[in-house]
């Protein structure tokens, strides 16, 4: 293992993380909801009245974020190496897996760990390990 100093951005990542935490705090303390993206989106697929609007508003906010950043002069330039077939497979796995585990990086990784939930700690350790193993196989064995 060696550190990728070229791409390492401790301050920007810490600052972005603080904003994510503030967003989760806002949704928790005003809306009384957990900022778990897979749960928020998944709840839209089994719509219940009076439960749809806040979910749509949150997702609209996520959509608006890159537009707001672009207006402020920051253009999102994601490096996406995966082809369309791999993206479709990855999306399927993420969709099934996050609902099956009742959470993703935000629900278990951020909110769950903030609540000191043992369940979320196990989930986070599991998906991190699975992700690292997948990248290891793809980059170093294949």
């Amino acid at each position: 293992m060696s550190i990728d100093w070229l791409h390492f951005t401790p301050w920007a990542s810490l600052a972005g993380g603080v904003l994510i935490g503030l967003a989760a705090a806002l949704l928790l303390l005003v809306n009384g909801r957990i900022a778990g993206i897979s749960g928020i989106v998944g709840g839209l697929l089994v719509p219940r009245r009076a439960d749809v609007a806040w979910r749509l508003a949150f997702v609209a906010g996520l959509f608006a974020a890159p537009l707001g950043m672009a207006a402020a002069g920051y253009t999102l330039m994601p490096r996406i190496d995966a082809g369309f077939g791999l993206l479709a497979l990855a999306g399927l796995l993420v969709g099934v897996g996050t609902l099956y585990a009742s959470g993703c990086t935000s629900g278990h990784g951020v909110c769950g760990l903030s609540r000191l939930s043992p369940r979320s700690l196990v989930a986070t350790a599991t998906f991190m390990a699975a992700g690292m193993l997948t990248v290891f196989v793809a980059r170093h064995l294949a």
Partner: protein
Amino acid sequence: MNLLSAFAAGLLFGIGLIISGMADPGKVLGFLDVAGRWDPSLAFVMAGAIGVGFAAFRLAGRRARTFVGGALHLPQQRDIDPRLLAGAAVFGIGWGLAGFCPGPALVAFGAGFAEAAVFVAAMLLGMLVYVAAERLIHQPRRQRA
């Protein structure tokens, strides 16, 4: 008020994902590639988010209602069962294949990237498959007339 705060929370969350680098699958894969040239940045994202989140959940734990008087919907599940482990493992594999998890994919979709649109469409399909399978399994079998 509640819709405005939900929108603001989503916006803030998305901006945080962009500034932190989480919305860049290349950076996410750089974090997951511990055996290669490792980019530890995402550990700093987690630290920042959990630092603030911890305080927020402590505050919420001392209250019966939200600041505007609504109900606090906190997760009730506590069990560490095969569902949790299998689901998290499947999610992790998908995450490692493309570098996208749900939030960043929605943000990149909002920015107009076709790759993210494909990922999000497949993710929604996967969620629908899960919901349909759950219904099939848990719905009581209909009695024959």
